[in-house]
C-alpha cells in the first residue's frame, strides 16, 4: 500500500517535470539520449577549440619552409624515460643517400630533446587581438623547428602539424560562412515559396529542381577558375564561400518551404490571422520560432557538404590558393601516387575531414530527432 503511493508520487513528479519543461528543455533531453550525437557534439566543440586556438596549438610558423627538412616522416614521441613521465623526442639528422641522392633522415637516440609545455615560440595574436608567443608545445635545448615533427613535414619542409591546425581554422570557418549564406538564401526563397505559394512557388521550385539536376563540381570548377589570379587570400576565400553557397541553398529552401506549408494550416496561425496580426508578425513571431529547431538541424546537416566542396576545390588547385592553408590545400600535395608512396603522412588531413563530416552528420541527425519534442 505504502509502496504503491510512492510509485504514484514519483510518476506524477516525473510527469509534472515533463509537462512543465520548456520546449528547449525537452529538446535537450531528447538530444541527450542520442549517444552518438552527444559524442559528436563533443568532437565538434574540440574542433572549434582548435579553430580558436590554432596558433597556440601550432608550435612553428606554418609558413616556415626549409628545403633541408623536406618530407620528414612523423616522429614518435617517447613519453617515459627511466620509468618517469618525461616526454621527449630523439634528435633527427638529415643526410643525402650517396647512391640514390634521396634525402634520408636518421634518428639519433643518443641526443634526447625533452618536450616542454606552455613555452615561448613564434609571436601571434590570440583571438586576433592579444599579442603573445606562448605555445602548447615546445622543446628544450634545441630550436623547435629543427627538432619536433609530430606529423612530419611537407615537400617544402613545413611542419604538417602546425599547418593542420591553421587548415582546420580555415576549413571549418569557410563551412560555417558558406552555410550562413545558403541559410539566408534558403530561408528567403523557401519562405517566399512556402508562404505565398502560387506563381512564386512554382518558379522557385523549378529553379531548385534545375539547380539540383546540375553536376555541381564542374560548375564550381568553372566559376572558381575564373577568379582573377591577382586576388588576395581574403578575396578568394570570400569568393569561394559565395560560389559554394550559391549552389548549396536548395536543400535548406526545401526544408523551409515544407515547414511553412505545414504550419500555414495550423490552428494557432489561423487564430493569429483572425486576431488581426500583421503578416510579418505572423511569420517572425509565430512561425519562425516553431520551425527554428528544424532549420538548425537542416543547417547542421548542410555544413559537411560545404566543407567537402571547399576541400575538393582546393584539392584541385582551383579553390583556396597558397599561402591560404586549408585541408584541401594540404591534400593537394598528396595528389599523385608517387607522392603517396614516398610520404604517406601527407594523407593525414584526410582524418580530420572525415571526423568533422561524420560529427556534423551525427549531430545534425540528433538535432533533427530532437527538433520536434512534442512529436
Amino acid at each position, binding site marked *: 500500500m505504502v509502496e504503491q503511493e510512492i510509485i504514484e508520487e514519483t510518476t506524477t513528479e516525473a510527469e509534472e517535470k515533463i509537462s512543465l519543461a520548456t520546449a528547449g528543455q525537452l529538446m535537450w533531453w531528447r538530444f541527450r539520449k542520442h549517444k552518438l550525437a552527444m559524442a559528436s557534439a563533443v568532437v565538434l566543440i574540440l574542433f572549434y577549440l582548435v579553430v580558436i586556438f590554432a596558433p597556440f596549438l601550432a608550435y612553428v610558423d606554418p609558413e616556415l619552409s626549409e628545403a633541408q627538412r623536406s618530407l620528414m616522416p612523423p616522429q614518435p614521441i617517447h613519453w617515459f624515460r627511466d620509468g618517469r613521465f618525461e616526454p621527449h623526442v630523439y634528435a633527427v639528422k638529415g643526410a643525402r643517400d650517396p647512391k640514390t641522392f634521396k634525402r634520408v633522415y636518421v634518428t639519433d637516440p643518443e641526443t634526447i630533446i625533452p618536450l616542454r609545455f606552455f613555452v615561448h615560440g613564434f609571436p601571434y595574436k590570440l583571438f586576433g587581438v592579444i599579442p603573445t608567443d606562448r605555445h602548447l608545445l615546445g622543446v628544450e635545448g634545441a630550436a623547435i623547428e629543427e627538432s619536433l615533427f609530430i606529423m612530419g613535414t611537407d615537400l617544402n619542409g613545413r611542419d604538417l602539424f602546425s599547418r593542420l591546425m591553421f587548415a582546420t581554422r580555415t576549413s571549418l570557418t569557410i563551412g560555417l560562412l558558406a552555410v550562413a549564406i545558403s541559410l539566408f538564401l534558403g530561408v528567403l526563397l523557401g519562405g517566399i515559396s512556402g508562404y505565398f505559394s502560387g506563381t512564386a512557388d512554382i518558379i522557385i521550385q523549378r529553379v531548385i529542381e534545375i539547380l539540383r539536376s*546540375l553536376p555541381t563540381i564542374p560548375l564550381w570548377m568553372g566559376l572558381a*577558375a575564373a577568379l582573377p589570379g591577382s586576388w588576395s587570400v581574403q578575396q578568394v576565400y570570400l569568393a569561394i564561400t559565395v560560389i559554394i553557397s550559391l549552389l548549396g541553398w536548395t536543400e535548406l529552401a526545401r526544408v523551409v518551404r515544407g515547414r511553412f506549408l505545414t504550419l500555414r494550416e495550423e490552428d494557432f496561425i489561423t487564430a493569429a490571422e483572425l486576431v488581426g496580426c500583421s503578416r510579418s508578425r505572423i511569420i517572425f513571431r509565430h512561425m519562425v520560432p516553431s520551425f527554428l529547431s528544424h532549420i538548425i538541424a537542416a543547417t547542421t546537416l548542410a555544413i559537411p557538404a560545404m566543407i567537402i566542396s571547399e576541400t575538393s576545390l582546393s584539392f584541385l588547385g582551383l579553390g583556396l590558393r597558397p599561402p591560404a592553408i586549408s585541408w584541401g590545400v594540404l591534400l593537394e600535395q598528396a595528389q599523385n601516387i608517387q607522392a603517396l608512396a614516398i610520404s604517406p603522412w601527407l594523407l593525414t588531413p*584526410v582524418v580530420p575531414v572525415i571526423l568533422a563530416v*561524420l560529427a556534423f552528420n551525427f549531430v545534425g541527425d540528433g538535432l533533427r530527432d530532437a527538433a520536434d519534442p512534442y512529436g
Partner: protein
Amino acid sequence: MLGYLVRRLALAVVTIIAISILSFIIIQLPPGDFVTTYIATMSAGGATVSEAEVEALREQYGLNQPMIVQYLKWASQMLRGNFGMAMEWNRPVKDVIGDRLALTVVVSLAAVIFTWAVALPIGIYSAVKRYSIGDYIFTFIGFIGLAIPGFMLALIVMYVGFRYFNANIGGLFSPDLADAPWSWAKFKDMLAHLPIPAVVLGLSGTAQLIRIMRSNLLDELRKPYVMTARARGLPETRVILKYPVRVALNPFISTIGYLLPYIVSGSIIVSLVLSLPTVGPLLLKALIAQDMFLAGTIILLLGVMTVIGTFISDLLLMWVDPRIRLERR
C-alpha cells in the same frame, strides 16, 4: 501519361538552356574575349594568326554584337555540333572530347549500376531485419561512405593498392592498350579496370540509397495489405518481394535524377586521382590554362548528359509505376 512526359521533357529542355547559359557565362568570365586568348595562345605556340582569320572568328561568334546575340550564335553553333577549337591541342574540341566523354558515360553508368546492385539487397535486408547486427553494420558502413568524399576514398584506395598489393590501380586500361584502337581485348581490359572506379564513385551514393530504400520499405511493411498477405499464408519472401519492395522501389528510381549529377560531379575529381581518361582531367587542364572555350563546352556536355540520364530515369519510372502511367491530366 502524356502530360507527365511533356512536363518532364519541358523541364529537361529548360534545364539544358539553363546549363548553356551558365556555361556561356563561364566562357565569358575571364577578361578579354576568347579570340584574344586564342590569338595569344596561338602566337605563344609559335603559330601566327592572320588578320583575316581573326576577323572571320569574330564574325562567326558575333563578338562585336551584344551579349544576347553572342549567346544565340554560340548556342546555334553548339546545336550544330560545332564545338570550336581546343586551343592547347589546336584540334577541334569534338575530337579532343569525343572518346573521353564516352568513357565518362561508361564510368558513371558503372557507378550507377554498382550503386543499385548493392543498395537494393542491403536496403531490403536492413528494413526486413531491422535493428539486427547486420543492419547496424551496414548503417555504420553507410555513414562512413557518406562521410568520405570520393576523391579521398580514391587516394586511400590508391595508397592501399600500392602499399599492400604493389600495384598501380589507377587508369582504365593497361598501359600497352591505352593508345590502341578499340578491340575486343581493349574492351575486356576496360571491364577489368572498371570495378575500382565504380566502387569509389558509387559508395557514397550507395549509402544514401540504402537509407532511402530502408525507410521506404519500412513504411510499406507497416501497411495493412502486408498483414493481409501474411494472414493468407503467402511465403515470407513473396510477401516482401512481390508488393512492398515494388512500391518502395519507386523513389529509388526517381532518386537517380539526383544520383546522376552527383556521380558525374564526383567522376571529374575521382578521375584525376585515379588517372581515368574521362573528361575530368581535361576539364581541369582547360580551366588552369584558361581555355574557357573547351572548359565551357565540357561543362555544357556534362550537364546535357546528366539531363538526358535523368530523363531516361523518368521514362523508367513511368514504366515501373502504373500510377504515373495512368495519370490523366
